[in-house]
Protein backbone atom coordinates (compact mmCIF):
# COMPACT_ATOMS: atom_id res chain seq x y z
CA UNK A 1 0.00 0.00 0.00
CA UNK A 2 2.79 2.37 0.92
CA UNK A 3 4.69 1.63 -2.27
CA UNK A 4 1.55 1.94 -4.37
CA UNK A 5 1.03 5.39 -2.92
CA UNK A 6 4.63 6.37 -3.60
CA UNK A 7 4.48 5.12 -7.19
CA UNK A 8 1.20 6.95 -7.75
CA UNK A 9 2.59 10.19 -6.35
CA UNK A 10 5.73 9.91 -8.47
CA UNK A 11 3.66 9.26 -11.59
CA UNK A 12 1.35 12.19 -10.88
CA UNK A 13 4.26 14.57 -10.34
CA UNK A 14 6.16 13.27 -13.36
CA UNK A 15 3.26 13.29 -15.78
CA UNK A 16 1.83 16.47 -14.34
CA UNK A 17 5.15 18.26 -14.75
CA UNK A 18 5.64 17.02 -18.31
CA UNK A 19 2.11 17.92 -19.36
CA UNK A 20 2.30 21.33 -17.75
CA UNK A 21 5.68 22.00 -19.36
CA UNK A 22 4.29 21.11 -22.79
CA UNK A 23 1.23 23.27 -22.19
CA UNK A 24 3.43 26.20 -21.18
CA UNK A 25 5.61 25.70 -24.28
CA UNK A 26 2.48 25.76 -26.43
CA UNK A 27 1.17 28.82 -24.62
CA UNK A 28 4.49 30.56 -25.14
CA UNK A 29 4.51 29.78 -28.87
CA UNK A 30 0.95 30.90 -29.35
CA UNK A 31 0.89 33.96 -27.07
CA UNK A 32 4.25 35.11 -28.34
CA UNK A 33 3.09 34.77 -31.92
CA UNK A 34 -0.08 36.75 -31.36
CA UNK A 35 1.80 39.43 -29.43
CA UNK A 36 3.90 39.87 -32.57
CA UNK A 37 0.86 39.88 -34.85
CA UNK A 38 1.60 36.36 -36.10
CA UNK A 39 -0.48 33.20 -35.92
CA UNK A 40 2.16 30.83 -34.61
CA UNK A 41 1.76 27.04 -34.77
CA UNK A 42 -1.20 26.26 -37.00
CA UNK A 43 -1.08 22.90 -38.75
CA UNK A 44 0.41 20.43 -36.25
CA UNK A 45 -2.32 18.28 -34.73
CA UNK A 46 -5.10 19.44 -37.00
CA UNK A 47 -6.42 22.50 -35.20
CA UNK A 48 -4.59 25.48 -33.71
CA UNK A 49 -1.30 23.59 -33.93
CA UNK A 50 -1.91 22.04 -30.50
CA UNK A 51 0.58 19.22 -31.19
CA UNK A 52 3.46 21.57 -31.92
CA UNK A 53 5.34 21.01 -28.62
CA UNK A 54 4.99 17.24 -29.06
CA UNK A 55 6.27 17.49 -32.62
CA UNK A 56 9.17 19.65 -31.44
CA UNK A 57 10.06 17.13 -28.73
CA UNK A 58 9.95 14.29 -31.29
CA UNK A 59 12.21 16.25 -33.60
CA UNK A 60 14.72 16.96 -30.83
CA UNK A 61 14.81 13.27 -29.89
CA UNK A 62 15.61 12.26 -33.46
CA UNK A 63 18.72 14.45 -33.51
CA UNK A 64 22.17 12.98 -33.06
CA UNK A 65 23.31 12.93 -29.46
CA UNK A 66 26.62 14.79 -29.59
CA UNK A 67 29.29 14.96 -26.93
CA UNK A 68 32.13 17.36 -27.78
CA UNK A 69 35.58 15.77 -27.98
CA UNK A 70 37.16 17.91 -25.27
CA UNK A 71 34.17 17.62 -22.97
CA UNK A 72 34.24 16.17 -19.50
CA UNK A 73 31.95 13.32 -20.52
CA UNK A 74 30.53 12.25 -17.15
CA UNK A 75 29.79 15.76 -15.99
CA UNK A 76 28.46 16.74 -19.42
CA UNK A 77 26.04 13.83 -19.41
CA UNK A 78 24.99 14.23 -15.78
CA UNK A 79 24.17 17.95 -15.98
CA UNK A 80 20.71 17.73 -17.62
CA UNK A 81 19.61 15.04 -15.17
CA UNK A 82 20.51 17.26 -12.23
CA UNK A 83 18.53 20.16 -13.67
CA UNK A 84 15.49 17.98 -14.35
CA UNK A 85 15.69 16.21 -10.99
CA UNK A 86 15.97 19.48 -9.08
CA UNK A 87 12.89 20.83 -10.82
CA UNK A 88 10.97 17.59 -10.34
CA UNK A 89 11.94 17.25 -6.70
CA UNK A 90 10.66 20.73 -5.93
CA UNK A 91 7.17 19.80 -7.12
CA UNK A 92 6.92 17.27 -4.31
CA UNK A 93 6.15 19.79 -1.59
CA UNK A 94 3.75 22.07 -3.50
CA UNK A 95 0.31 21.53 -1.97
CA UNK A 96 -2.57 21.28 -4.43
CA UNK A 97 -5.10 20.74 -1.65
CA UNK A 98 -5.16 20.16 2.10
CA UNK A 99 -4.30 16.48 1.55
CA UNK A 100 -3.07 16.63 -2.05
CA UNK A 101 0.60 17.11 -1.39
CA UNK A 102 3.53 14.82 -2.08
CA UNK A 103 5.16 15.29 1.30
CA UNK A 104 4.05 17.98 3.73
CA UNK A 105 7.46 18.88 5.13
CA UNK A 106 7.71 21.11 8.19
CA UNK A 107 10.59 22.83 6.43
CA UNK A 108 8.85 22.96 3.07
CA UNK A 109 9.98 26.47 2.16
CA UNK A 110 13.54 25.71 3.16
CA UNK A 111 13.50 22.51 1.11
CA UNK A 112 12.11 24.36 -1.91
CA UNK A 113 14.76 27.06 -1.85
CA UNK A 114 17.53 24.53 -1.29
CA UNK A 115 16.41 22.21 -4.08
CA UNK A 116 15.78 24.97 -6.61
CA UNK A 117 19.36 26.16 -6.11
CA UNK A 118 20.51 22.76 -7.34
CA UNK A 119 19.49 23.86 -10.84
CA UNK A 120 22.36 26.34 -10.72
CA UNK A 121 24.72 23.47 -10.08
CA UNK A 122 23.46 21.63 -13.15
CA UNK A 123 23.79 24.75 -15.29
CA UNK A 124 27.31 25.40 -14.04
CA UNK A 125 28.25 21.76 -14.70
CA UNK A 126 26.87 22.00 -18.22
CA UNK A 127 28.80 25.19 -18.87
CA UNK A 128 32.03 23.87 -17.44
CA UNK A 129 31.96 20.42 -19.03
CA UNK A 130 31.08 21.52 -22.56
CA UNK A 131 34.66 22.53 -23.49
CA UNK A 132 33.28 25.61 -25.21
CA UNK A 133 33.98 29.21 -24.35
CA UNK A 134 30.39 30.27 -24.96
CA UNK A 135 29.16 27.54 -22.65
CA UNK A 136 31.70 28.43 -19.98
CA UNK A 137 30.85 32.13 -20.00
CA UNK A 138 27.16 31.26 -20.09
CA UNK A 139 27.53 28.93 -17.13
CA UNK A 140 29.52 31.49 -15.14
CA UNK A 141 27.00 34.19 -15.91
CA UNK A 142 24.21 31.85 -14.85
CA UNK A 143 26.02 31.14 -11.59
CA UNK A 144 26.67 34.84 -10.92
CA UNK A 145 23.08 35.72 -11.74
CA UNK A 146 21.51 32.93 -9.74
CA UNK A 147 23.62 33.74 -6.70
CA UNK A 148 22.70 37.41 -6.99
CA UNK A 149 18.98 36.73 -7.31
CA UNK A 150 18.80 33.84 -4.86
CA UNK A 151 19.33 36.39 -2.06
CA UNK A 152 16.36 38.68 -2.76
CA UNK A 153 14.27 35.57 -3.44
CA UNK A 154 15.12 34.05 -0.08
CA UNK A 155 14.77 37.38 1.73
CA UNK A 156 11.37 37.95 0.20
CA UNK A 157 10.29 34.49 1.29
CA UNK A 158 11.63 35.11 4.80
CA UNK A 159 9.07 37.89 5.18
CA UNK A 160 6.31 35.45 4.28
CA UNK A 161 7.64 32.89 6.73
CA UNK A 162 7.73 35.57 9.44
CA UNK A 163 4.16 36.55 8.73
CA UNK A 164 2.87 32.98 8.54
CA UNK A 165 4.92 31.76 11.48
CA UNK A 166 5.60 28.44 9.79
CA UNK A 167 7.82 27.01 7.07
CA UNK A 168 5.36 24.34 6.01
CA UNK A 169 3.72 25.26 2.71
CA UNK A 170 0.41 23.85 3.87
CA UNK A 171 0.74 25.95 7.01
CA UNK A 172 1.42 29.05 4.93
CA UNK A 173 -1.73 28.44 2.88
CA UNK A 174 -3.75 27.88 6.06
CA UNK A 175 -2.36 31.10 7.50
CA UNK A 176 -3.75 32.93 4.49
CA UNK A 177 -7.10 31.17 4.82
CA UNK A 178 -7.48 32.33 8.42
CA UNK A 179 -9.98 35.05 9.15
CA UNK A 180 -8.25 38.39 8.86
CA UNK A 181 -11.09 40.55 10.22
CA UNK A 182 -14.86 40.38 10.33
CA UNK A 183 -17.37 42.87 8.99
CA UNK A 184 -20.50 42.11 10.99
CA UNK A 185 -20.83 38.38 10.58
CA UNK A 186 -18.88 38.15 7.28
CA UNK A 187 -15.45 36.71 7.83
CA UNK A 188 -12.90 38.20 5.50
CA UNK A 189 -9.61 36.48 4.85
CA UNK A 190 -7.02 37.51 2.31
CA UNK A 191 -3.86 36.14 0.76
CA UNK A 192 -0.54 37.58 1.87
CA UNK A 193 -0.26 39.83 -1.17
CA UNK A 194 -3.14 41.89 0.28
CA UNK A 195 -1.80 41.66 3.81
CA UNK A 196 1.17 43.93 3.16
CA UNK A 197 3.32 41.59 1.10
CA UNK A 198 2.92 43.47 -2.18
CA UNK A 199 6.55 44.65 -2.16
CA UNK A 200 7.67 41.16 -1.23
CA UNK A 201 5.62 39.74 -4.10
CA UNK A 202 7.19 42.11 -6.61
CA UNK A 203 10.69 41.31 -5.34
CA UNK A 204 9.89 37.60 -5.47
CA UNK A 205 8.51 37.98 -9.00
CA UNK A 206 11.57 39.80 -10.33
CA UNK A 207 13.95 37.38 -8.62
CA UNK A 208 11.95 34.39 -9.87
CA UNK A 209 12.10 35.57 -13.48
CA UNK A 210 15.84 36.04 -12.98
CA UNK A 211 16.13 32.54 -11.51
CA UNK A 212 14.43 31.20 -14.62
CA UNK A 213 17.01 33.14 -16.69
CA UNK A 214 14.27 34.34 -18.97
CA UNK A 215 14.08 37.70 -20.71
CA UNK A 216 14.76 40.34 -19.36
CA UNK A 217 17.30 38.34 -17.33
CA UNK A 218 18.52 35.90 -19.98
CA UNK A 219 22.18 36.92 -19.99
CA UNK A 220 23.32 33.29 -19.48
CA UNK A 221 21.86 32.27 -22.84
CA UNK A 222 22.04 35.65 -24.58
CA UNK A 223 21.87 34.53 -28.21
CA UNK A 224 23.41 37.64 -29.68
CA UNK A 225 26.66 37.26 -27.77
CA UNK A 226 26.83 33.71 -26.37
CA UNK A 227 25.02 31.68 -29.05
CA UNK A 228 23.01 29.69 -26.52
CA UNK A 229 25.25 29.93 -23.45
CA UNK A 230 25.53 26.69 -21.49
CA UNK A 231 23.12 24.99 -23.92
CA UNK A 232 25.38 25.52 -26.94
CA UNK A 233 26.85 22.00 -27.08
CA UNK A 234 23.71 20.12 -26.11
CA UNK A 235 21.57 18.35 -28.64
CA UNK A 236 18.93 15.67 -28.83
CA UNK A 237 17.40 14.29 -25.65
CA UNK A 238 19.74 16.21 -23.34
CA UNK A 239 18.68 19.51 -24.89
CA UNK A 240 15.04 18.43 -24.60
CA UNK A 241 15.58 17.77 -20.91
CA UNK A 242 16.99 21.26 -20.33
CA UNK A 243 14.16 22.69 -22.38
CA UNK A 244 11.44 20.83 -20.48
CA UNK A 245 13.07 21.64 -17.15
CA UNK A 246 13.13 25.32 -18.08
CA UNK A 247 9.42 25.37 -18.79
CA UNK A 248 8.60 23.15 -15.83
CA UNK A 249 10.43 25.63 -13.60
CA UNK A 250 8.18 28.40 -14.89
CA UNK A 251 5.24 26.38 -13.63
CA UNK A 252 7.14 25.57 -10.45
CA UNK A 253 8.04 29.15 -9.58
CA UNK A 254 4.54 30.32 -10.49
CA UNK A 255 3.17 27.65 -8.18
CA UNK A 256 5.52 28.73 -5.38
CA UNK A 257 4.56 32.37 -5.85
CA UNK A 258 0.88 31.40 -5.90
CA UNK A 259 1.28 29.37 -2.71
CA UNK A 260 3.29 31.96 -0.84
CA UNK A 261 1.50 35.13 -1.89
CA UNK A 262 -1.79 34.35 -3.60
CA UNK A 263 -3.19 31.76 -1.21
CA UNK A 264 -2.24 28.60 -3.11
CA UNK A 265 -5.09 26.14 -3.37
CA UNK A 266 -7.26 28.30 -1.16
CA UNK A 267 -9.79 30.74 -2.54
CA UNK A 268 -12.28 32.88 -0.65
CA UNK A 269 -15.77 31.49 -0.05
CA UNK A 270 -14.87 27.96 -1.10
CA UNK A 271 -15.98 25.63 1.70
CA UNK A 272 -13.19 23.94 3.63
CA UNK A 273 -14.19 20.38 2.70
CA UNK A 274 -14.42 21.17 -1.04
CA UNK A 275 -10.79 22.30 -1.17
CA UNK A 276 -9.50 18.81 -1.89
CA UNK A 277 -11.63 18.68 -5.02
CA UNK A 278 -11.30 22.26 -6.22
CA UNK A 279 -7.84 23.01 -4.77
CA UNK A 280 -5.87 21.80 -7.80
CA UNK A 281 -8.06 23.86 -10.15
CA UNK A 282 -7.73 26.98 -8.02
CA UNK A 283 -3.97 26.53 -7.84
CA UNK A 284 -3.79 25.92 -11.59
CA UNK A 285 -5.78 29.07 -12.32
CA UNK A 286 -3.38 31.13 -10.21
CA UNK A 287 -0.38 29.44 -11.83
CA UNK A 288 -1.84 30.13 -15.27
CA UNK A 289 -2.18 33.85 -14.52
CA UNK A 290 1.39 34.11 -13.22
CA UNK A 291 2.76 32.07 -16.13
CA UNK A 292 0.96 34.35 -18.54
CA UNK A 293 2.64 37.36 -16.93
CA UNK A 294 6.04 35.65 -17.25
CA UNK A 295 5.42 34.97 -20.95
CA UNK A 296 4.03 38.47 -21.44
CA UNK A 297 7.18 40.02 -19.94
CA UNK A 298 9.36 37.83 -22.13
CA UNK A 299 7.77 39.07 -25.35
CA UNK A 300 7.79 42.72 -24.29
CA UNK A 301 10.92 43.75 -22.48
CA UNK A 302 14.48 43.97 -23.76
CA UNK A 303 17.37 42.20 -22.10
CA UNK A 304 19.28 43.82 -19.22
CA UNK A 305 23.00 44.31 -19.53
CA UNK A 306 25.11 42.16 -17.18
CA UNK A 307 26.09 45.09 -14.93
CA UNK A 308 22.53 46.45 -14.82
CA UNK A 309 21.37 42.99 -13.88
CA UNK A 310 23.82 42.72 -11.01
CA UNK A 311 23.20 46.26 -9.80
CA UNK A 312 19.43 45.68 -9.78
CA UNK A 313 19.88 42.70 -7.49
CA UNK A 314 22.57 43.99 -5.14
CA UNK A 315 21.73 47.69 -4.98
CA UNK A 316 17.94 47.63 -5.13
CA UNK A 317 16.29 44.29 -4.50
CA UNK A 318 18.32 43.09 -1.54
CA UNK A 319 18.06 46.35 0.49
CA UNK A 320 14.37 46.53 -0.40
CA UNK A 321 13.84 42.92 0.68
CA UNK A 322 15.63 43.57 3.99
CA UNK A 323 13.48 46.64 4.56
CA UNK A 324 10.44 44.53 3.73
CA UNK A 325 11.39 41.96 6.38
CA UNK A 326 11.86 44.77 8.90
CA UNK A 327 8.41 46.19 8.23
CA UNK A 328 6.68 42.80 8.22
CA UNK A 329 8.46 41.73 11.41
CA UNK A 330 7.56 45.01 13.13
CA UNK A 331 3.90 44.60 12.25
CA UNK A 332 4.03 40.96 13.35
CA UNK A 333 5.41 41.94 16.76
CA UNK A 334 3.16 44.97 17.22
CA UNK A 335 -0.03 43.53 15.77
Amino acid sequence: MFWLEVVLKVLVVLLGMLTLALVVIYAELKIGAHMQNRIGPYYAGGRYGWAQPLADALKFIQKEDLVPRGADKTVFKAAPYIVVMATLAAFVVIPAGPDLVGVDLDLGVFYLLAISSLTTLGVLMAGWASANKYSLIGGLRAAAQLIAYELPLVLAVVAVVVQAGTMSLNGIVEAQAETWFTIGSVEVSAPFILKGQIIGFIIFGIAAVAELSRIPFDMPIAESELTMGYLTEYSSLRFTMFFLAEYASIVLLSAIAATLYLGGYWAPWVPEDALNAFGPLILLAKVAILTFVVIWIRWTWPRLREDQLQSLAWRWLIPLALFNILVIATFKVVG
Partner: protein
Amino acid sequence: MAANKRISFPFVGLYKGMWVTLRTLFKKPPTVMYPDVKEIPVPRARGVISLDTEACTVCMLCSRECPDWCIYIEGHKEEVPPSKPGGRVRTRAKLDRFDIDYALCMYCGICVEVCPFDALFWSPEYEYSEHSIADMLHNKDRLSDWLQTVPDPPGLESS
Protein backbone atom coordinates in the same frame (compact mmCIF):
# COMPACT_ATOMS: atom_id res chain seq x y z
CA MET B 1 6.03 72.29 -18.32
CA ALA B 2 8.31 71.91 -21.30
CA ALA B 3 7.00 69.60 -23.97
CA ASN B 4 10.12 67.46 -24.02
CA LYS B 5 10.29 66.96 -20.26
CA ARG B 6 10.76 63.31 -19.42
CA ILE B 7 7.89 61.68 -17.61
CA SER B 8 9.13 60.97 -14.11
CA PHE B 9 6.82 58.07 -13.36
CA PRO B 10 9.17 55.11 -12.79
CA PHE B 11 9.58 52.56 -15.61
CA VAL B 12 6.77 54.13 -17.64
CA GLY B 13 8.30 52.75 -20.82
CA LEU B 14 8.07 49.19 -19.52
CA TYR B 15 4.35 49.55 -18.76
CA LYS B 16 3.71 51.14 -22.14
CA GLY B 17 5.42 48.19 -23.79
CA MET B 18 3.30 45.77 -21.78
CA TRP B 19 0.16 47.61 -22.89
CA VAL B 20 1.23 47.46 -26.55
CA THR B 21 1.85 43.71 -26.47
CA LEU B 22 -1.40 43.09 -24.59
CA ARG B 23 -3.36 45.06 -27.17
CA THR B 24 -1.63 43.28 -30.03
CA LEU B 25 -2.43 39.92 -28.42
CA PHE B 26 -6.15 40.47 -29.04
CA LYS B 27 -5.78 41.85 -32.55
CA LYS B 28 -6.36 39.61 -35.52
CA PRO B 29 -3.06 38.91 -37.26
CA PRO B 30 -3.07 39.96 -40.93
CA THR B 31 -1.65 36.58 -41.96
CA VAL B 32 -2.95 35.06 -45.20
CA MET B 33 -2.83 31.26 -45.02
CA TYR B 34 -0.92 31.09 -48.29
CA PRO B 35 -1.32 27.69 -49.96
CA ASP B 36 -5.01 27.58 -49.01
CA VAL B 37 -5.79 31.24 -49.47
CA LYS B 38 -3.99 33.24 -52.11
CA GLU B 39 -3.12 36.83 -51.64
CA ILE B 40 -3.97 39.01 -54.63
CA PRO B 41 -1.01 41.32 -55.20
CA VAL B 42 -1.47 44.89 -56.33
CA PRO B 43 -1.29 45.35 -60.14
CA ARG B 44 2.04 47.11 -59.94
CA ALA B 45 3.66 44.42 -57.79
CA ARG B 46 7.09 43.31 -58.95
CA GLY B 47 6.46 39.60 -59.34
CA VAL B 48 8.13 38.49 -62.52
CA ILE B 49 9.51 40.21 -65.62
CA SER B 50 7.87 39.33 -68.93
CA LEU B 51 9.22 39.84 -72.42
CA ASP B 52 7.56 40.97 -75.62
CA THR B 53 9.77 39.27 -78.22
CA GLU B 54 8.25 41.27 -81.06
CA ALA B 55 9.30 44.55 -79.51
CA CYS B 56 12.83 43.48 -78.57
CA THR B 57 15.55 44.79 -80.88
CA VAL B 58 18.48 42.98 -79.20
CA CYS B 59 19.97 46.32 -78.18
CA MET B 60 21.43 44.70 -75.01
CA LEU B 61 20.71 47.76 -72.89
CA CYS B 62 18.87 45.73 -70.24
CA SER B 63 21.63 43.14 -70.13
CA ARG B 64 24.28 45.82 -69.69
CA GLU B 65 22.41 47.78 -67.06
CA CYS B 66 21.49 44.72 -64.99
CA PRO B 67 23.38 45.03 -61.67
CA ASP B 68 23.36 41.26 -61.20
CA TRP B 69 24.20 40.39 -64.79
CA CYS B 70 21.35 37.95 -64.82
CA ILE B 71 20.06 38.64 -68.36
CA TYR B 72 21.59 36.64 -71.19
CA ILE B 73 20.90 37.82 -74.73
CA GLU B 74 22.07 36.41 -78.03
CA GLY B 75 20.98 37.46 -81.48
CA HIS B 76 22.03 37.70 -85.08
CA LYS B 77 21.48 39.97 -88.04
CA GLU B 78 19.09 38.84 -90.74
CA GLU B 79 18.80 40.25 -94.19
CA VAL B 80 15.32 41.38 -95.08
CA PRO B 81 14.62 41.48 -98.81
CA PRO B 82 13.70 44.91 -100.16
CA SER B 83 10.01 45.71 -100.06
CA LYS B 84 10.10 47.33 -103.52
CA PRO B 85 12.09 46.02 -106.42
CA GLY B 86 15.40 47.80 -106.73
CA GLY B 87 15.33 48.77 -103.09
CA ARG B 88 18.13 48.31 -100.62
CA VAL B 89 18.49 45.06 -98.70
CA ARG B 90 17.98 45.83 -95.04
CA THR B 91 19.39 44.04 -92.02
CA ARG B 92 17.35 43.33 -88.98
CA ALA B 93 18.31 42.00 -85.55
CA LYS B 94 16.77 38.63 -84.69
CA LEU B 95 16.51 37.48 -81.07
CA ASP B 96 17.93 33.98 -80.52
CA ARG B 97 18.16 33.82 -76.79
CA PHE B 98 16.73 35.91 -73.98
CA ASP B 99 17.15 34.35 -70.55
CA ILE B 100 16.62 35.88 -67.15
CA ASP B 101 18.13 33.98 -64.23
CA TYR B 102 15.64 34.59 -61.41
CA ALA B 103 18.03 32.92 -59.01
CA LEU B 104 20.25 35.96 -59.45
CA CYS B 105 17.66 38.64 -60.16
CA MET B 106 17.14 41.14 -57.34
CA TYR B 107 13.93 42.60 -58.77
CA CYS B 108 15.31 46.12 -59.06
CA GLY B 109 13.43 46.69 -62.32
CA ILE B 110 16.27 48.62 -63.99
CA CYS B 111 15.90 46.48 -67.13
CA VAL B 112 12.21 47.42 -67.37
CA GLU B 113 13.04 51.07 -66.85
CA VAL B 114 15.88 51.12 -69.32
CA CYS B 115 14.21 49.28 -72.23
CA PRO B 116 13.73 51.90 -75.01
CA PHE B 117 11.28 49.75 -76.98
CA ASP B 118 8.89 48.69 -74.20
CA ALA B 119 9.74 45.04 -74.52
CA LEU B 120 9.94 44.28 -70.80
CA PHE B 121 7.04 44.49 -68.34
CA TRP B 122 6.44 43.76 -64.70
CA SER B 123 3.87 41.09 -63.96
CA PRO B 124 2.43 40.58 -60.45
CA GLU B 125 2.63 36.79 -60.82
CA TYR B 126 4.76 35.25 -58.07
CA GLU B 127 4.28 31.47 -58.10
CA TYR B 128 7.28 30.20 -60.01
CA SER B 129 9.47 28.55 -57.39
CA GLU B 130 11.35 25.44 -58.51
CA HIS B 131 12.94 22.38 -56.97
CA SER B 132 16.15 22.87 -58.91
CA ILE B 133 18.00 26.18 -59.06
CA ALA B 134 18.75 25.60 -62.77
CA ASP B 135 15.03 25.84 -63.50
CA MET B 136 15.00 29.39 -62.24
CA LEU B 137 16.54 30.40 -65.57
CA HIS B 138 13.52 31.42 -67.63
CA ASN B 139 14.01 31.28 -71.38
CA LYS B 140 12.46 33.38 -74.12
CA ASP B 141 9.30 31.31 -74.40
CA ARG B 142 8.63 31.26 -70.74
CA LEU B 143 9.23 35.00 -70.44
CA SER B 144 6.80 35.59 -73.31
CA ASP B 145 4.20 33.44 -71.56
CA TRP B 146 4.35 35.79 -68.59
CA LEU B 147 3.22 38.55 -70.92
CA GLN B 148 -0.37 37.29 -70.65
CA THR B 149 -0.35 38.00 -66.92
CA VAL B 150 0.71 41.62 -67.30
CA PRO B 151 -2.17 43.88 -66.30
CA ASP B 152 -3.29 46.67 -68.58
CA PRO B 153 -1.49 49.93 -67.94
CA PRO B 154 -3.49 52.47 -65.96
CA GLY B 155 -5.40 54.99 -68.00
CA LEU B 156 -3.93 58.39 -68.72
CA GLU B 157 -4.62 61.05 -66.18
CA SER B 158 -7.43 63.30 -67.34
CA SER B 159 -6.92 67.08 -67.38
